[in-house]
């Protein structure tokens, strides 16, 4: 029996496969099925503070203060006291999931205001979250905001939250940092317990008929795993923090590669959405089979064995490799000649 245990934010997980924040985590039933399929922990769907703000605006305008009319009506929606804020519903769900699951449950929080992070983070801890994932979703579009400002924003949020919660915090980051290792070190110094690489920004698209920006949910692709492999490999060995890989894992191959690069856990979302919970056990079995075939005894042996520090040729992870790949590219006949 291979020892697949891994350390994640100080929690010992039975294996490295952790379903991440996705709509699957919204239903108790699907969460239970994921646990049955072998999930080592669950990151609940992200609670978006932006959504809460929009919902509050809706509630206030149409429910709480719907004075939109004349003397005949003071509002249109019935208020029977059953209306619950989505944060209450989230916390309720968290409590239920926590009560039913034996694996750790991580709450995921996406905030836009400092107060939002602090309040919601505390409430999530109180509701039983074993750890908090801060899904920082900031698109730096303001020319007055420097790279340092952007980093400072993350650090401030982390520092403030660390002061009020005791559970571990993992920062889910985008890939858009000038020097990711430097920034990760700053996070570590500020008290982060791990980083999760990388969150995926929703990419607005242009509708050519209506000439307007449209939003659509795009599932990740296998190719996206490559970006994670590189950066996890670079970071492993340079930080003692938990490294979680998220995005692009469809099968055991990507999972293994990420683990080899140094990930402590591998998150699954798109593949589970597409193929159901069975995919998790299939990946787990395939990982195990691969390790058996190569006579690994434990995940600990494998984890990070191909990180930057351990590569014979570290330049494989640096820029030159791109040039070599490009050089080696041979177009199809008839394309150029």
């Amino acid at each position, binding site marked *: 029996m291979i020892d697949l245990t891994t350390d994640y934010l100080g929690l010992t997980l039975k294996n490295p496969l952790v379903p991440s924040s996705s709509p699957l985590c919204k239903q108790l039933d699907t969460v239970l099925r994921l646990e049955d399929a072998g999930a080592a922990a669950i990151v609940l769907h992200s609670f978006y503070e932006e959504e809460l703000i929009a919902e509050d605006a809706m509630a206030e305008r149409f429910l709480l203060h719907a*004075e939109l*009319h004349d003397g005949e*009506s003071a509002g249109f929606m*019935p208020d*029977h006291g059953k209306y619950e804020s989505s944060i209450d519903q989230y916390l309720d769900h968290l409590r239920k999931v926590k009560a039913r699951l034996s694996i750790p449950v991580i709450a995921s929080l996406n905030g836009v205001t400092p107060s939002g992070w602090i309040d919601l983070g505390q409430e999530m801890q109180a509701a039983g979250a074993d750890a908090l994932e801060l899904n920082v979703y900031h698109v730096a579009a303001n020319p007055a905001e420097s790279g340092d400002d952007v980093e400072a924003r993350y650090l401030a949020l982390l520092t403030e939250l660390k002061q009020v919660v005791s559970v571990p915090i993992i920062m889910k980051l985008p890939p858009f940092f000038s020097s990711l290792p430097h920034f990760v070190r700053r996070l570590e110094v500020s008290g982060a317990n791990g980083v999760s690489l990388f969150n995926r920004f929703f990419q607005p698209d242009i509708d050519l008929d209506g000439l307007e920006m449209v939003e659509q949910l795009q599932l990740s692709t296998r190719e996206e795993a490559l970006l994670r492999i590189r950066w996890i490999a670079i970071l492993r060995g340079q930080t003692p923090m938990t490294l979680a890989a998220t995005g692009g894992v469809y099968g055991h191959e990507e999972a293994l590669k990420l683990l080899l690069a140094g990930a402590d856990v591998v998150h699954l979302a798109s593949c589970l959405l597409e193929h159901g919970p069975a995919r998790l056990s299939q990946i787990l079995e395939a990982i195990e089979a691969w390790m058996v075939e190569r006579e690994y005894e434990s995940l600990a042996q494998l984890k990070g064995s191909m990180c930057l520090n351990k590569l014979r040729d570290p330049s494989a992870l640096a820029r030159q490799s791109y040039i070599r790949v490009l050089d080696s590219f041979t177009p199809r006949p008839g394309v150029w000649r």
Partner: protein
Amino acid sequence: MTTYLNLDGNEAAARMAYLGSEVVAIYPITPSSNMGEWADEWAAQGKPNLWGVVPKIIEMQSEGGAAGALHGALTSGALGTSFTASQGLLLFIPNLYKMAGELTPFVLHVAARALATHALSIFGDHSDVMACRATGCALLASNSVQEAQDMALIAQAATLAGRIPVIHFFDGFRTSHEVAKIVAVETETVRAMIDDTLVAAHRARALSPEHPVLRGTAQNPDVFFQSRERANPFYDAFPAIVQTAMDRFGELTGRHYRLFDYVGAPDAERVIVVMGSAAETVEETVEHLVARGEKVGLVKMRLFRPLASAALLEAIPATARAIAVLDRCKEPGSEGEPLYKDVVTALAEAAADGTRSMPRVIGGRFGLASKEFTPGMVAAVFAQLAAAQPRRQFTVGIVDDVTHLSLAWDAAFRSDASRRQQHAVFWGLGADGTVSANKNSIKIVGESTGLQAQGYFVYDSKKSGAVTVSHLRFGDSSIRSSYLVEEGMAGFVACHQPVFVERYDLLAHAAPGGVFLLNTPEAADAVWAGLPAAMRAGIVAKGLKLWVIDAYKVAQDAGMGRRINTIMQTCFFAISGILPRDEAIAAIKKAVDKTYGKKSKRLADLNHRAIDVTLANLHEVPLAGLSDDGASPIFVAPAVPADAPAHVRDFTLPIYRGEGNSLPVSAMPVDGTFTTGTAKFEKRNIGLEIPVWESDLCTQCGKCVFVCPHSAIRARAFPAEAAIEAPITFKHVPAKSKDFPAGTHISYQVAPEDCTGCGDCVEACPIHDKTNISRLAVNMAPLAPLREAERDNFDFFLKLPDFDRSLLKHGTIPGAMLLDPLFEFSGACAGCGETPYIRLATQLFGDRMLVANATGCSSIYGANLPSTPYTVNGAGRGPAWSNSLFEDNAEFGLGMRLASDQLMSYAMQLTQEMAAEIGGDLAEALVGADQRQEAGIRAQRERVAALLQKLAASRHPRAKELASLAEWLVRRSVWIIGGDGWAYDIGYGGLDHILALSYDVNILVLDTEVYSNTGGQTSKATPLGAVAKFSAGGKTTAKKDLARIASDYGHVYVATVAYGAKDVHTLKAFHEAESHAGPSLIVAYSPCIAHGVDMLYNQRQQDMAVKTGHWPLFRYDPRVEEAGGNPFRLDSAPPTQSIKAFMDSETRFAMLARSHPDAAERLVAQAQKDADRRYKGYQEIAAAHAPAAPKES
């Protein structure tokens, strides 16, 4: 322990009604709707009745339906109740006779309201309950919010004991909507008042197959009369039963009532007898006059039916020499109103019996439709009683310069009670939260102090930019002032909207030395100079303290957007001195927590922060050294437009300014008939931004005009030379279409002072600047800098010569939108989804339209005085409009058709008879004219003109007769317009009947999928999964497919339309419907603010509704079948998005996920199935007829 409640009369009555009921059958009608809503809310919360069971609340299709359901429930053993008013009560009447005839105990709670006569009114008087006095029901009046609660319980106890059904009533709005601090009746008291043996007796009388009986027989002359007399003992006994219940209630609560309560001097010589809230004002005035040694008194009539004459006589002091009986109703043609006549009868009988001498009795009408009734008026009535020859019949509260019945009164009279109280007046907008903040303040004062509190809220009838004036009173003893805060009495006046300073006389209510709080963007040191001169003078003259706050900035900074209610409430407590400041702030915060509770901690926190920063931003303006410039403190109303006709200047505009109360009787038309086209004089300037036309980009597509709910953006074609003297900023460009004569120019012009700033035109604009996608052919810009220039431009635009309609392509959007609208600037909500359909109909057919309009939003914004958005064209023609009732609109419209057809036939008959006189060709052409299309109508109008010329010169004995009928030779386009509440529910029977006939009527159903006007109650048009009042858990059944049902007749033209999805389709449907020579039904999707979505997105929502299959588009045209084709044409493509996408986008669906998450998921799935099923059904019908080649005609 005494529990105090701060609530309104509706809630007070509903609390008692709920506890004593098992079945509650309801239907919304103002001002009683809230009682049903409370019952529904409590049931949804699982609140039990007295017996631990949650009552069944059932919304019916009309009050007639509610009455029937209630009758059935009662006769089958349940305890039941209902709530209604006005026309609703009239619909109850047939069943009231039945229920009383069968001695069925129950209480009907009525917020008494005026009946529609020459006009509809939503306001309070006793016309409705007086119409029920022969039904056999007892009539029990409550005079205050406290009594609305107490009498509701007394009535319930009495009806069970005496088996006579009771109509328990209180004054609509004045009591139903007044918020007051009352002593609660505890559940134990209710328990002690309701005798379960009587409940068991009621159940024992229930229809049951276990011990069957027969009820509701038909009887013949032999026994009917005797049967009718058989119940007499029950009526004889009932007054004593009510008194017993009152006595028992007194024992339990300490509040003692009599059938007729007397207050005043024991040896009063002059006495007023009155029922309802006015009794409170009279009592307050009697107290004042008695304190000055006057021998006056009041009899409060509580039980009006059955009338206990002996008790009444007992209540009137023997010393009374002169009695005035005041009726809050009018019985035209009678020599006195009902209460007066009953009192006279009782006294006359006593005099005839020799048991007392006959005093002088006079009768007066007052307070119709919530007309103010003040202590000054009461004093005038007492003064009249002291006259040597008092008027036997009089009115009070108006100036009657026609029949001279009215009493003069001293407007400056103030009672002692009024002088003891603290008064506050707040001016706000319907949407700014002023009213809810004030209700909250009353609760705070009521709950945290021993003070009594009262709040009454006056709204105007606009649905956009509605002005609210809140009248608050606080006092040490109970507040009996059932009238508005009087001028010069308010120690605190607040103006929550800066624009009001120019529009209204805000200082009229202010007491000398009082506080005036102004929300203004101006800084404290700059505000004085910006105030109108009269206001500055008024502040100085009254020695007011002026405080200012920029509440919108504070709100914005605190993250509250534009919500200023909490901020202004904080200001009120900070400077009014009603409560110690810290105590008040703590109480406001507590109230905030209660409001937001579980709903949003975040919002609660934001409000807390706003409260904290408010005080730092509230400043007193030091008035020392500031001058009033010697101006007059008399309020100067905005200037009257120079072109206003006399009736507008003398009637319409004073009403706009809030001076309607001072208009005398002679200013009124005798029969409620008014000139149209007055909305254009209102110039409300409520849009913060208005559209600006970019003539260089515009393709002249007309879409902005098509979607405008207020006809505030217009297009016109004209010869270029007509614009030679145009204002310099007037934009016009050559017409792009080749269809116009050379040299034709086109202008798209906004009416800057009439636009509500909804932005729908910008949303509809399909044209982008190719280099900057956000610049469209119309873009919103702030009103202020544009107002003056655009006002001149719009004036010029209106004076452009009329373009020949026959040169315009009415079947295209660009062409049709160059037709002048004859419906403009209504008071509908900004972004209203209904009004574009009405405007479209008037553009196409307005000069020949007769409109029958069902009661509802469309009748309110269509004809709530003084606004009349229906208007006329250059020839003086336009829609002629009327509203009959809510329930009979289809029949009303049919009547218009019948009259038109009948008079046309008569005119044709005369034409034929006089053919020789008129000229054979003209006569033949007049009779045989094809008038289906506009060209034919135009030709007929010319023939009619020729006919009239000939008739003028004719000596034929019937020439005058034909001349008077000639206008009927032109075909009229009859439009029957109403909402879904009418078409799907209360008026469906009539609508169905009209559809089943073959008459040429056009029925336009403005389907908002909910009762919009009365506040969002469920109708049968409400879609599955939507949350509405009475469907708090989401509607579980599908929407009725009215269009498909109608199309089953085969001869009816039917179309479902949604202009925001397919405007051309809508245009086509209107043309097809109007030209169809039989009944036509257009079911028009009308987004409404009740859907819980910003009306900026009106068109987007329509588009989504169609694309997701929520609102499939189809047309059914019987003419196509006659031509051999498939009359059913499915006009929308198969859904491309899930119904969930649509449901997620509107609060009415989305909030279900917050309140009932499991049901939400289930209903979304069900809604998808239903949408799929409906679309598939349509596809099958569309495919059912093999397309046949159209017959050659």
